[in-house]
């Protein structure tokens, strides 16, 4: 079980780094959403179902959505 957490955390860190490294902003945003999703899993494993739900709904869903909207309103307009 510890190994599973550790792997998830590693994945989260890798996604975080990837979110900063990617050239295309869409990829960055999706990676950031990935970080939130893994964090939601981690919350669940930490016995915090409320927080996990909130993170899943808000961090993964809404945050990513408003990032994408902003992207389309700025540099993404026309793409």
């Amino acid at each position, binding site marked *: 079980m510890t190994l599973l957490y550790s792997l998830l955390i590693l994945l989260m860190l890798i996604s975080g780094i990837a979110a900063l490294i990617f050239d295309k902003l869409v990829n960055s945003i999706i990676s950031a959403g990935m970080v939130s999703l893994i964090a939601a899993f981690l919350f669940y494993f930490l016995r*915090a*179902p*409320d927080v*996990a*739900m*909130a993170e899943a*709904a*808000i961090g993964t*869903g*809404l945050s990513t*959505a*408003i990032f994408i*909207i*902003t992207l*389309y*309103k700025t540099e993404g307009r026309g793409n």
Partner: protein
Amino acid sequence: MNFRKILALITIILLGIFILQAFLIIPEKGEIALNNFGKADIENRTAQLYIDKSVNSTNEQVIYKESKDKESGSANIVTSIVANYRALDTLGEVTVLFLAATGLSAILYNKKHAKSNFILKEDSFILKNGIKILFPLLILAGSYIIIYGHLSPGGSFQGGAVIATAFLLKLLSSKEYELDENILKIIEVTAGVSFVSIGLYGLYAEGSFLTNFLETGTIANLFSGGIVPIIYITIGLKVAVELTNIINDLMKA
């Protein structure tokens, strides 16, 4: 990697070392330090009183579907903290949310309204028809999460976010769809005012702000927890409306 980035990296590594060494501090007597992972000492924390549902230390056991008239009768302890013990914090949090949404509409305020409120070039058939089925289901799910917030995992924040997501999908699905901002305003104001007036009634009836003045009932019944479910519903409405507003503003910008 230019000089600037290397400098930033070194600084941040130093900062990380300083943060991490805080976890290694072994407390001396009378000092407070961070616990090791999984060794949280709940017995000596305020949390134990919240779990026992007795801030005044009567230490009776709380039993599912049996205990009555506990000071905060909700089965979900996180909910009882958010909506009862620390409800004043939550009021402040809702205020921050409100201010952020207001600030956003002030920043993005546009007299012309000429810009498209939509980001896709044309309506997607699948999304448009899928939403027709999904929208009421999402609203229902959100409402369930909010209303059962004091019994099961979930609550107003999660449910509010789900409802806001439903509106996001609706906005994405169709160019023509417009939210009626007046209704949003009315709901928002009603929710905020009722939250505060519940608090004020507590002040009037029990002597302090946001105190429980209803019967708390048996734990884990739907009608239990005193003012907790009512407050949670107002917060849920408020969160849902604010988040919907934020999305609406951003899409119309």
